[in-house]
């Protein structure tokens, strides 16, 4: 499945996430959600499902919805089940001749709502095989409640629940590999992507996910200027560094076949990604060199494994 990507045409499509929402200035989530929804064909309708999150409280604050499509938010931990219910209703009503046209079902949830509290609901929905896309916008912590660690928070990152003190030095644990967990569900399409460059990767992965029948999953890196502690204007650069250091590799797994969707021209050292972000500042203090070494070793190991899997 592929589509000829043309940025100029794409940006001329009517927006599906409007301005006037209340995400922070420079929030990655707004960019990710607009980017994914842009992949919908113009004539197709969608129902957007949302877990409780920054995105939810900002994009549907009564009476202001920022969605051009139907939208439902129910709770934090159940967005995949909520989407299952909408999809089930669609099947039932379609069968009974009570609904017309094509409707697509797209869920957005943060890493807290996906990696952690919503994982059971997500796993269930994927296993049952609903025709839906689940998009995790991964900003690597519970940002809605004010930057608490999640299982998506990378090691050593400072959050309000993994503070840097005289003994504690940020998060002690690894980042859960959620994308792999989703691959293990043997669903038709899984991809890890991010908004970079001309958005071709995000757009193509989103298009594939939306127009592949069955349950599909996108994990999208979505920087949070506040939580990651960098100047909001540098978002594009931060994402590019995540990708070029291989901290956040871009790949897709279609019907079990792994494919690398982006190979950095030159693999940059992890410090290039860490240095601009306040959440990693303590890693650069004297005596903490081991943290950077560990971070680099971990990224290298995962990258090598991905290269093996993708046959690249």
């Amino acid at each position, binding site marked *: 499945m592929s589509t000829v990507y043309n*940025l*100029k045409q*794409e*940006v*001329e499509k009517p*927006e599906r*996430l*409007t*301005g*006037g*929402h*209340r*995400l*922070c*200035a*420079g*929030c*990655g*989530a*707004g*960019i990710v959600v*607009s*980017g994914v929804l*842009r992949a919908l064909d113009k004539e197709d309708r969608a129902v957007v499902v949302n877990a409780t999150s920054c995105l939810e409280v900002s*994009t*549907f*604050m*009564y*009476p*202001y*919805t*920022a*969605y*051009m*499509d139907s939208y439902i938010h129910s709770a934090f931990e159940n967005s995949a089940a909520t989407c299952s219910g909408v999809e089930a209703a669609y099947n039932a009503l379609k069968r009974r001749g009570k609904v017309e046209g094509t409707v697509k079902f797209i869920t957005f949830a943060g890493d807290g709502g996906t990696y952690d509290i919503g994982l059971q609901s997500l796993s269930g929905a994927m296993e049952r095989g609903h025709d839906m896309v689940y998009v995790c916008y991964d900003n690597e912590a519970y940002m809605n409640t004010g930057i608490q660690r999640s299982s998506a928070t990378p090691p050593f990152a400072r959050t309000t629940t993994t503070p840097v003190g005289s003994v504690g030095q940020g998060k002690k644990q690894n980042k859960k590999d959620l994308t792999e967990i989703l691959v293990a569900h043997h669903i038709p399409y899984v991809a890890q992507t991010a*908004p970079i*460059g*001309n*958005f071709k990767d995000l757009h193509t992965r989103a298009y594939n996910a939306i127009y592949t029948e069955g349950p599909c999953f996108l994990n999208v890196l979505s920087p949070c*200027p506040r939580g990651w502690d960098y*100047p*909001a*204007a*540098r*978002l*594009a*650069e931060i994402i590019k560094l995540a990708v070029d250091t291989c901290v956040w590799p871009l790949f897709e797994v279609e019907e079990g076949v792994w494919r690398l969707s982006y190979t950095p021209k030159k693999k940059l050292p992890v410090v290039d990604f860490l240095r601009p972000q306040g959440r990693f500042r303590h890693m650069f203090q004297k005596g903490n060199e081991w943290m950077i070494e560990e971070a680099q070793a971990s990224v290298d190991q995962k990258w090598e494994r991905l290269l093996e899997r993708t046959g690249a």
Partner: protein
Amino acid sequence: MICAKDINERTPWQDLTPGGEIYEPGTARAFNTGAWRTHTPVFHPETCKHCMLCVPFCPDNAIPVKDGKRLDFNYMHCKGCGICENVCPFPAITMVSGGVAR
């Protein structure tokens, strides 16, 4: 049908939509987030090559596009994050201090 434009903080309970439903698309467009700006992007159409790289990077969908051309910012929604200035390969966008659009 109760419309979002008729709902405000003085609306009595009888006139609100049940359960907080909204029956229209994109009612958030009526909300002014431009007031949040402390910095403001300035568009220089003369140097813009309409490559569109800034458009998808705008978290607020505040860069309108029409007939292959990007237009001036929608200052009602632009929060002044400055991402667009950074991604612009040309000097077509510059950030200036202050929230007022010029």
